[in-house]
C-alpha cells in the first residue's frame, strides 16, 4: 500500500449534490490531502452518484477486479481506509465489494442511468468512451422524419408526469412549416420525492445535450432552452460547463459533428415557482413573464415559445432518446409492459432505509420497490403509506402495494405514476395533516389564474381543519367532497385538478386520522381569506 512503486490509483468520489450534502467534498479533500502529502499515489475523480444514496459518500477504487466500493465514508475514515489498503481494494468494515455486482445495482436495468455515477460528468473523452454520441451520430444519418418514426416506434412516453408519447409530439412540431422552432427541456422537477432529473444533469449532462440535439434535428429546431429550477444550483453549474465543453467539441453550434445541423442551447434558471413545471407556465416564464398557465389549445407543439412550434419534454425523456437511437427502437420497446414501454427511473425517498434510484422496466410492483429495494423504513417502524408521483399523487395504503407500476394500472386504481417518485411514510404519519398539506401546497403554489384552484385550495385547508376539530364533521366532510369535485372538474390545469387526489386518497384509505383527533403536525398557516366555503 504505502509503496512508492505502486502505480497511481484512481479513486471516485461523487460530486452529486446529495452525496455532497452528507460530506463527499470533505472526503474528497481528505483523500487529495493524503495524496498531496506523498503518502499515497492517487487521483480523485469526481463522478456522479450511482444512486445508492444511503451509501453516500460512496468511494470507489479502480482495481483489476473492478471498482471496489467503500461507504458511507466519513472524512475521518479516510486515513484508516488508506492504511488498511483501500487503494488495492483491501478489506475494511466499510468495504462493500465490487460495486457493479452489488445486488441492488445488479438487479436493475439501467438504460437512461447507464453512465450516471460511472463517468466523470464533464469529461468529453469519458463520455465518448462510454458510448456517448452514438445516438446523435445515428440520428444524423437519418432524415428528420425517420428519427421521429424511430422515437415513436420505441414507445417512449414523456417522463415528466403525463406520459404523452414523445414521437407524436415531435411529429407535430416537424410538420409545422415555420423557420424558427425551439426545443425546451423541462428541468423544473418541482415534485417532492423526485431527483432523477437533477442526478442526470449533475451526473451525465452530455446525454441530455445529446438528446436535445437529436430532438432539434428531428423537428428542425435551431435553438434550445433548458429551464432548470433555482433550487438546483449544482445542476445549473454543471449544465453550463457541459454546454461550454460541448461547443468546444463541435457537439453544439454550427455544423454539429460535421453535419448540416446548427443548434445551440441556453440555460435558464427558474425563480422558485412550482407551477413553472407545468409546460405552458414554463414557456411564459422563459418569455420573461409571470408563470401563468396558458389555456390549451393551442398546444405548445404548434404555438409554443414566443408563439413558435416547440418541443417541450422532460429531462428523462430527452436523456433517453440517445440510447433509443443508438440501440434501436425495438431494443427499448421490448422492455416494459402493455403501453408502458422501456424503463422507468423510480426514485425512492422519504422514510426509507435504502433510498435512491431504481431504474427498471415498467411493471415492477410498489412492494418490490419499497420492501426489496428500499428495505423498509429508515426509522425501522412499519410502513404505513407511500405517496407516488409527487405532491399531486395519491397516498396508497399497504394493501395496494402489489399494484404493478404502469401508467394505466395506476390510473385505473385512482393513482398516478407521474415522474416515478415514491415517498414512504412510517406509522407515525398523520394523514389528515398530509391532506391538509396538499391543499396548503396548492394554495401556496397556485398560479392564480382560475378560481377553483386559487380559492378552492384555501377553502380546502379551512374545511379540513374543521373536520379534524370535529366542527360539524358530516357537513364539512360533504363540503370537502364537493370542493374536491369542483377542483377536479373546474381547474384549468392539473395543479388544481389533481390536488384532490392526495386529499381524497388520504380520506378514503385513512379515515380514522380525520375523525380521531390525532394531533396535527406543526404547520405554517396559509394566508386566510374572507368568508366561508
Amino acid at each position, binding site marked *: 500500500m504505502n509503496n512508492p512503486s505502486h502505480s497511481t490509483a484512481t479513486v471516485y468520489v461523487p460530486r452529486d449534490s446529495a452525496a455532497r450534502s452528507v460530506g463527499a467534498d470533505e472526503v474528497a479533500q481528505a483523500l487529495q490531502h493524503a495524496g498531496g502529502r506523498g503518502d499515497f499515489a492517487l487521483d480523485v475523480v469526481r463522478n456522479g452518484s450511482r444512486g445508492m444514496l444511503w451509501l453516500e459518500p460512496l468511494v470507489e477504487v479502480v482495481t483489476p477486479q473492478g471498482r471496489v466500493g467503500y461507504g458511507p465514508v466519513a472524512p475521518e475514515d479516510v486515513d484508516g481506509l488508506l492504511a488498511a489498503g483501500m487503494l488495492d481494494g483491501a478489506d475494511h468494515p466499510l468495504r462493500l465489494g465490487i460495486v457493479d455486482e452489488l445486488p441492488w445495482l445488479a438487479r436493475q436495468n439501467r438504460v437512461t442511468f447507464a453512465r450516471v455515477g460511472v463517468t466523470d460528468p464533464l469529461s468529453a473523452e469519458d463520455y465518448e468512451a462510454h458510448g456517448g454520441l452514438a445516438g446523435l451520430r445515428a440520428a444524423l444519418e437519418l432524415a428528420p422524419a425517420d428519427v421521429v418514426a424511430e422515437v415513436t416506434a420505441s414507445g417512449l412516453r414523456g417522463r415528466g408526469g403525463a406520459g404523452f408519447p414523445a414521437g407524436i409530439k415531435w411529429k407535430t412540431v416537424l410538420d409545422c412549416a415555420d423557420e424558427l422552432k425551439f426545443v425546451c427541456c423541462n428541468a423544473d422537477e418541482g415534485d*417532492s420525492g423526485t*431527483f432523477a432529473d437533477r442526478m442526470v444533469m449533475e451526473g451525465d449532462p452530455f446525454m441530455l445535450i445529446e438528446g436535445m440535439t437529436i430532438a432539434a434535428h428531428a423537428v428542425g429546431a435551431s435553438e434550445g432552452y433548458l429551464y432548470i429550477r433555482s*433550487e438546483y444550483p449544482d445542476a445549473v453549474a454543471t449544465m453550463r460547463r457541459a454546454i461550454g465543453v460541448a461547443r468546444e467539441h463541435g457537439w453544439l453550434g454550427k455544423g454539429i459533428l460535421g453535419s448540416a445541423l446548427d443548434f445551440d442551447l441556453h440555460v435558464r434558471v427558474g425563480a422558485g415557482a412550482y407551477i413553472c413545471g407545468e409546460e405552458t407556465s414554463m414557456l411564459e416564464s422563459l418569455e420573461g413573464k409571470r408563470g401563468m398557465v396558458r389555456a390549451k389549445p393551442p398546444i405548445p407543439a404548434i404555438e409554443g415559445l414566443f408563439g413558435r412550434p416547440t418541443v417541450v419534454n422532460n429531462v428523462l425523456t430527452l436523456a433517453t432518446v440517445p440510447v433509443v437511437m443508438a440501440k434501436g427502437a425495438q431494443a427499448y420497446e421490448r422492455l416494459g409492459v402493455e403501453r408502458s414501454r422501456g424503463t422507468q427511473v423510480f426514485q425512492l425517498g422519504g422514510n426509507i432505509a435504502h433510498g435512491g434510484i431504481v431504474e427498471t422496466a415498467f411493471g415492477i410492483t410498489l412492494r418490490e420497490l419499497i420492501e426489496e429495494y428500499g428495505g423498509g423504513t429508515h426509522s425501522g417502524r412499519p410502513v404505513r403509506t407511500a405517496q407516488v408521483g409527487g405532491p399531486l399523487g395519491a397516498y396508497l395504503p399497504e394493501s395496494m402495494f402489489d399494484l404493478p407500476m404502469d401508467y394505466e394500472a395506476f390510473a385505473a386504481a385512482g393513482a398516478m405514476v407521474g415522474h416515478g417518485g415514491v415517498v414512504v411514510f412510517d406509522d407515525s404519519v398523520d394523514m389528515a395533516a398530509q391532506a391538509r398539506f396538499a391543499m396548503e401546497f396548492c394554495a401556496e403554489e397556485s398560479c392564480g389564474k382560475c378560481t377553483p384552484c386559487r380559492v378552492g385550495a384555501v377553502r380546502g385547508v379551512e374545511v379540513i381543519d374543521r373536520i379534524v376539530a370535529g366542527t360539524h364533521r358530516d357537513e364539512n366532510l360533504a363540503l370537502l367532497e364537493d370542493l374536491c369535485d369542483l377542483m377536479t372538474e373546474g381547474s384549468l390545469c392539473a395543479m388544481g385538478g389533481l390536488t384532490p387526489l392526495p386529499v381524497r386518497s388520504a380520506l378514503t384509505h385513512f379515515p380514522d386520522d380525520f375523525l380521531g383527533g390525532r394531533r396535527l403536525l406543526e404547520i405554517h398557516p396559509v394566508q386566510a381569506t374572507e368568508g366561508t366555503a
Partner: protein
Amino acid sequence: MTTSRSDVTVESVVRRVVARHRGERGALLPVLHAVQAELGHVPQEAVPVLAEELNLSRADVHGVVTFYHDFRREPAGRTTVRICRAEACQALGADQLVSYARESGLPLGETAADGSVTVEQVFCLGNCALGPSVEANGRLYGRVGPARLGSILNGTVSS
C-alpha cells in the same frame, strides 16, 4: 425619476445588468436574478428602470417580481437558511426542524434581529432520500436533525 444617491446606484447596476443580457430572448428573469445577486434584493427603484430598458410596462415588471418566490423586495439576512418542508422531508421529521428554528427565535420568514440569518421554507431540494434537507447560502445539507440545524444556524451566524 428622483436622483438621490441610492437611486443612482440601483439605476446604474440595473443598466449594467441589462446591457449584459441584451440580445437574450425574454431576458427579464435572468436580469432579475443578476440584479438580486448584486444588490441582495430587487428594490422598488429598479422597477421603472427595468421597464424602460426592456420596453415593458412597470406593471409587467412588478407582476413578475412579485410572482416568483425567489425575488425579494427587502434585503434578507447575511445568510439564508431554507428548510425543506415537502413530503419526503416531512416523512423524516422536517416539522421538528421548523419548530426548532422557531424556538430558537427564528420563525419561518423572519430575519434575526442582528441581520445575520433569515430562515425560510422551501419545497424540495432534490435530496429526498437523505432528508430532512436544509440549504444554507446555496449549500445543501442532508440528514439534518435539530442539533445539526443548530450548528448550521450558528455556523452561519458566526461567519
